């Protein structure tokens, strides 16, 4: 399976994503934000970091990067797109995911390893997981406070779009939301960092379960297992 990691000016988890993908034996291509096209990619990762310094609003400027037009098209055709941390913020700004991520409730950046619960196993990203599974994953963000209005929240619930929730809300997110998908389930946005949780010596290996889910789901679908 081939992953593509988009490199925006200010991205800083691009290498971590590449490392995790390679660690799991898959290939990875770095995609420069000024490119207008890409080919042969099975899953796009929008990595963490501070694209364009997170000035104005996190993700607000990155969504206009030339490559984003193709990412949106790719997603609309059902392609797998994972936005992690800053990537999640970009996905909401560009409108592929509903809601928005605002400043953490206490206005402080928070770095920690926290437990999250799997709420939805109908999507590629949780293919190997069970509902209620607890994953311990690194978080590191200043604007991870997920907000959506009541109507939007009802929609999310109705369509089973909430994929991960915090056990102990670190940032003030509505309904403890840590990660959501679009209605079709092919676009995932999450604040925790699965790409940092791939080895025990780093403090967590639960991130692997998410990345392996994607790989297994894809392999099965394409008869490549």
């Amino acid at each position, binding site marked *: 399976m081939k992953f593509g990691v988009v490199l925006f000016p200010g991205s800083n988890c691009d290498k971590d994503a590449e490392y995790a993908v390679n660690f799991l034996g898959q290939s990875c291509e770095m995609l420069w934000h000024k490119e207008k096209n890409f080919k042969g990619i099975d899953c796009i990762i929008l990595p963490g970091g501070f694209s364009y310094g997170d000035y104005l609003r996190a993700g607000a400027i990155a969504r206009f990067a030339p490559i984003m037009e193709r990412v949106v098209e790719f997603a609309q055709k059902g392609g797998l797109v994972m936005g992690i941390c800053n990537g999640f913020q970009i996905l909401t700004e560009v409108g592929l995911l509903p809601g928005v991520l605002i400043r953490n409730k206490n206005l402080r950046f928070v*770095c920690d390893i926290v437990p999250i619960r799997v709420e939805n196993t109908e999507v590629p990203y949780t293919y190997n997981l069970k509902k209620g599974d607890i994953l311990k994953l690194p978080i590191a963000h200043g604007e991870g406070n997920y907000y959506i209005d009541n109507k939007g929240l009802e929609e999310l619930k109705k369509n089973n779009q909430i994929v991960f929730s915090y056990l102990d809300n670190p940032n003030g997110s509505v309904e403890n939301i840590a990660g959501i998908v679009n209605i079709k389930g092919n676009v995932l946005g999450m604040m925790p960092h699965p790409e940092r949780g791939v080895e025990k010596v*780093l403090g967590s290996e639960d991130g692997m379960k998410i990345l392996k889910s994607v790989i297994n789901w894809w392999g099965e679908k394409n008869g490549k297992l």
Partner: protein
Amino acid sequence: MANSREESYKLAGLTEEEYQKILADLKREPNPLELSMYGVLWSEHCSYKHTKKLLKYFPTEGEKVLQGPGENAGVLDGGDDIGIVFKIESHNHPSAVEPYQGAATGVGGIVRDIFSMGARPVALLNSLRFGSLNKQRNRYLLTGVVKGIGDYGNCLGIPDVGGEVYFHSCYDENPLVNAMCLGLVSVDKIKKGIAQGIGNVVMLVGAATGRDGIKGASFASANLEEDNENKRPSVQVGDPFMEKLLLEACMELVDNPYVVGVQDLGAAGLTSSACEMAARGKSGLELNLDKVHVREENMSAMEIMLSESQERMLYVVKPQGVEEVKKVFAKWDLQASEIGKVTDSGKIEIYYKGKLEGSIPTESIVDGVPLRDPLRKKPAYIEEKAKDIPIKEKVNYNDVLKTLIADENICSRKWIYSQYDYMVGNNTILRPGDTVGAVRIQGTTKAIGMTVDCNPLYPYLEPYHGGMMVVLESYRNLVAGGFKPLGITNCLNYPNPEDPENYYVLEQSIKGIAKACQELNTPVTGGNVSLYNQGVNTKIYPTPVIGMVGLIEDYHRCVTTAFKGEGELVYLVGE
């Protein structure tokens, strides 16, 4: 006339003796631009005039030292062709004025020192001192400093793997903010801050130059109360996003064969970086200030030369490489201007608007400052305080324990380090909360352990042995984590050196540090000196912060602090 001359060299921060030396070196009177350039480069911060002789006590050589003091950062040999580049720096005074920006730009500065050597920064640490937290102002300083360090380092994506913080009333007027950065480089790709090769091109890259932090020269003693917008030196504001772009662009140029030398612009801006690079290459430089990309209109030559705008680097490039270098910076949306060339004149010659505005012998401005040798006097308090403190016999140990763990100097530091991203990079093996911080070297089983320490009470009570003890603490921390200590960097934070008692303490503690480094075989590869940390009512304790670096061959064998399981035995080792 004589009077106004005295006024002008004093305004530039120079003494009579120093002014006479300038006259002798130039064989004429300096013009205002030249005088202010001398003023900043001959300041304590840039010239080390009070400490140069003392720093000679430090052992700076060893089998593992690839680069000792004198470059932008020191380098240790990590084996397998890996250079470990590291340095610590203070940003005390700026942080006292504006804690957020002061701390942020402190991080920015030390990170540039590391990547100017061609190394990719992989870890940050910080050492902080504030007055007691029961004062509102100190809480404000702590909050701002921690946020400043966090926001800058987090944005760059460099994990902050450790640090330390102490609170004591001696820091009420002078908080300390020391930041350390460590990076990795292939040994054959180490870059130096050198300008040589006649005709090579000098390029200024990164942020545009504005009137930031112009403090030297005539502004230094302008009355700050006076609300004159244009005269006020403006605080430097950091732009971590710009720095991230600069970092990535510089990393792309590490392999470029046309790059001759690189240095970041720090204190005293273009003046110090240009002069120092030229001095290392025993060269002259011709600078054309019209080519500098500026942020503001109508800047004078002096303002351009003294600006401390952040996120800038100076490159010396062979002419045939200029286009390629520009291309790399353009890819990262950065400006790169050709502002001059290397000459054999032995002078820094500054042209602006078609006129020669200044011409200074390189050697004179970089190495010509008359060194000071102040008086020493052993402070009386030392004998007094060395007496035994009686220990109360009847105490309730439960209460004592509770008091201790609630003490601001002992309680958990999680409030601080949870604001720093300590995991980015996927290499953090030991993180804040452990004895030392550690990052692994990707592609090997090795990890580098690092720690910053200084309990200022020791050097305060007994400067010589106290200095030794500070080094020993770092050493013990590294050994406890499983690392073999290799070398140190240090940040000497002291009060006014012109006071004989302060100077005595400074000298003695440096000797103590030097002795410990000698005995432990952990040479000094660089550091930073911050004097004059003294206010109206308080002066800081001697605070020589030690940043020590060690290596472990197999990071799976690192030892963490936590008790691992029930029933395991606990030993107390030592005397």
